[in-house]
């Protein structure tokens, strides 16, 4: 083996190990564990400890555990009527979130880390959009809305009330709002109100 060949091989070796050295020196600057965003893919609406509605993969399941058959309209909408709600107000509907593996989790820890209080929403809050029930996804005028979601973001709880106003239908998005954008923006949920 000539000295020229030796030089070539030494250079090759040097480069390979220089590359390995540089590679080993640094960690990837991005990480899936550093997200500021809530990993919410879906959610559950609960009355007490029982699931009233479950949303995942763009689909709504109404009363999935069979505890609230009176709240289901033709299997395709949430039915809210004077008969199943006393005082025209459904109180303390609680939200829990589901991740990409359909595992349910609470959002408190994210609220804490982004400046919120334990158990409270912090940088997050719930927002609701009312759309016409004709599938057009146009905003429903306020005077045509049959119901209203009442939510106090300062209450430090993930609960809200639903007030019935008049008979009719609506489609309601339930969004997880984060500072300036939606971390989760749901497909509109069909709701029928009978008074």
């Amino acid at each position, binding site marked *: 083996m*000539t*000295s*020229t*060949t030796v*030089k*070539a*091989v030494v*250079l*090759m070796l040097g*480069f*390979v*190990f*220089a*590359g*390995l050295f*540089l*590679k*080993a020196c*640094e960690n*990837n*600057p*991005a*990480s*899936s*564990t*550093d*997200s*500021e*965003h809530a*990993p*919410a*893919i*879906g959610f*559950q609406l609960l009355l007490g400890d029982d*699931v009233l509605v479950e949303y*995942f*993969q*763009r689909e709504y399941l109404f009363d999935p*555990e069979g505890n609230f058959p009176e709240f289901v309209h033709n299997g395709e909408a949430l039915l809210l009527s004077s008969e199943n709600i006393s005082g025209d107000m459904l109180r303390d509907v609680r939200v829990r979130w589901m*991740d*990409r*593996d*359909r*595992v*349910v*989790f*609470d959002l*408190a*820890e994210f609220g804490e*880390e982004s400046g919120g209080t334990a158990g409270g929403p912090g940088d997050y809050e719930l927002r609701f959009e009312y759309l016409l029930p004709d599938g057009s996804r146009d905003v429903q005028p306020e005077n045509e809305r049959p119901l209203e979601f009442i939510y106090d973001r300062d209450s430090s709880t993930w609960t809200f009330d639903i007030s019935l106003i008049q008979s009719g239908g609506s489609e309601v998005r339930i969004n997880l709002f*984060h*500072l*300036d*954008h*939606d*971390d*989760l*923006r*749901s*497909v509109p949920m069909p709701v029928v109100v009978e008074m």
Partner: protein
Amino acid sequence: MSVFIIPKGQRTKKVLQPKLLYFNRVAFAVLVLLWLAPWGEPSVVYANDADKTESSRGVVKGTVINIDEDSPVSNAAILIEELDRGTVSHRNGDFQFRNVPAGTYLLRVQHVGYDTGYQQITVTAGDTTFVEIGLRRGVIRSADVVVRDHYMRDDETTGVERVLTGRQLRQQLGQTIAETLEDEPGLAQRSMGPAPARPVLRGLGGDRLLILEDGGRTGDLSATAADHALAIEPMTAEHIELIRGPSALVHGSNTLGGVINVIRGQIPMDHPDHIHASGTLQGQSVNNGVAGGLRAFGPISSSLAYRVDGSVRTSGDMNTPEGRLGNTGITTLNASAGVSYIREWGMVGVSGNILDTKYGVPGGIGIADAHPNGVDIEMFRRYAEFRSRVNFGQGFFRRLDTDATYSFYKHDELEKPDFETNRRIVGSSFGVLTTNVKSHLHHNSFGIIDKGLIGIWGEHRDYASGAFSQTPETIEQAFAIYSFQEANPGNWNLQAALRFDHRTIQPQEERLSILIGDIRERSFSGVSASARVAYLWQNRIKTGLTVMRSFRAPGIEELYSEGPHLANFSYEKGNPDLNSESGFGSELFVDANFSRGSIRAAVYRNQMNNFIFPRNTDQRATRRDDLNVYRYSEERVLMTGLELSGNFRIAPSWQVSGSVNAVRGDFIADGDSYPLARFGSSEIAVPMMPPLSGRLNVEWSRNYLALGGTTRFAGAQNRLDEFEERTAGYMLFDAYAQYSITTGSTLHTFTLNVENIANTTYRNHLSRIKEIYPEPGTNVSLLYRFYF
């Protein structure tokens, strides 16, 4: 119902194996291969033996003169093509190459305002060869962008047709590589606002069109999404190559589209005898953009050489005929330094580069309801390169080139808030650490083979994404071995290349995803090959045929993407079950050169099995009902097209040039055989295909002044995929003036461009935001560049 609170930082469930293990195995295999390689005995040994060096090498000294005026020409670029070595003439026209191996070479000399000159030289061992090269004033533009494959006099694949002072590069110099190349035949640009533009060649973009920097991978993510910018600042490019055919396989297995190689020359390969420098200032009206850069290379000692460059670019929002396109500004800082140790036996060098870019992706109602203010992207890349060359002289092996690069790349996509006072949130974050090693062993002629090489290449990529993106952290490792050979019997030119690739893609967390399927390790292997036969008729007309079989493994994003990609305004769903893509391409070409001009025509046909692309499903995402789901799909695709270009000198100072490009993409149903070509209409077509386009240029030039006008045109694109929007045809008018002057030993060049003079509204079919925003309006730009 079980309820889990998932602590932050504990979501990665399974780390499969140490990241370096496999790479170490690859590195070991590389070394074993090298040790076992049939080195043979180089006929010449240089190291530590001055006498033998003297007896085996010679010196070339020469002068470049203006034939008409019998005066020296300074700042001419002189290249020994076979050795890939270049230098620049001094004030008195003199130049010199030391340590040139004995043999016969072709010198090429170029200078702005002159016809390119060629001179064959024979270097005698231990002697000095004197040469005088005369240049004549010319009007044919010297080309910075060189399509290498159709030139018989090409060097081997790593050789370049180098132009150090090129009018075309100055005239076309844009904010991005894509904008700079836009007027070249067959090229279009994918865009999403001006900053993240990327070239598309013959309808093939993404990683089907490999873009290299000094022959190495860029380490960025520009091939994976429309909002990702290319990490190359065009201002620092010395010239740009387009490579097609068998020689493209040296750079990658999936090069049906070709290879764009941006040459910056960051590591000096030759030892300059004094300092050379150039500077650039550029301004343009369409976005109040200003850019400037400096570049210098010179000797440090008798064995050391350096090269440094730096550039700054800043621009505001772009003006269009329909108003200002918000959030399209760019700020870029770029700095590089390289140093080489150059001796008789070869060289070794190292360089580093830092690129820091901030740019905007526009939003707006209709394209991004979720982000009406657009998205800001902050991109950072740190790049290190090591390079060596060892010369073996006139034995069987000629030289060994080894190149190792390391890239640290990161970019964050920041949601632009409604109010400036609000905190910006990282919507998506990407990091890629890339290590590449390649080695090319060049040989001299044997049998009917004139030249060629054997190469090996290895790559290790550490990919991660964060914020909204759910794509798992993934290690990608690739290895390839290949060979390229060329023979020139008589008037024939024969080229062939063969390549084997193996790639392993290893997500750090294997799991069954409800959303996309079984996320698991995938491995792909494949063979690619290419051959070209060309014949030169009467030293003027060259005809030939190129065929290529390509292989492409799916990318990480194509396999495992799972979540919103905000700046791309899409919800991307990968497919872990994708297969590797294979293609078969063919091209027939004619290249005719006459005393008053040249014509080049090519027809091509590329068929691809399992062509992978993100398809708009027109369905809204599960997590974000305001984003469309783009699902990576695989289809059988046929692309056919033609390119026609030419230039003609109609009078001593007048030249006309032009080009026409057409390409169409068709889906071929499963079970159907691929037709030779498809004609007529069809229900759906391959998305994002460039429409019929072309340009016509008229130029007057005399001495140091050139004036010209260009018409650019494109037809309507009515061949659409489902959910794709039509674009209308257009015609644009541009004008330019170029002037150069020499003061002392400094060459000054001025280029004035006026683009889209009529402020015509037009839309680029390859723009992701074409439905909302048109392309730039009238733009006046001025470029000043000096060389000494």
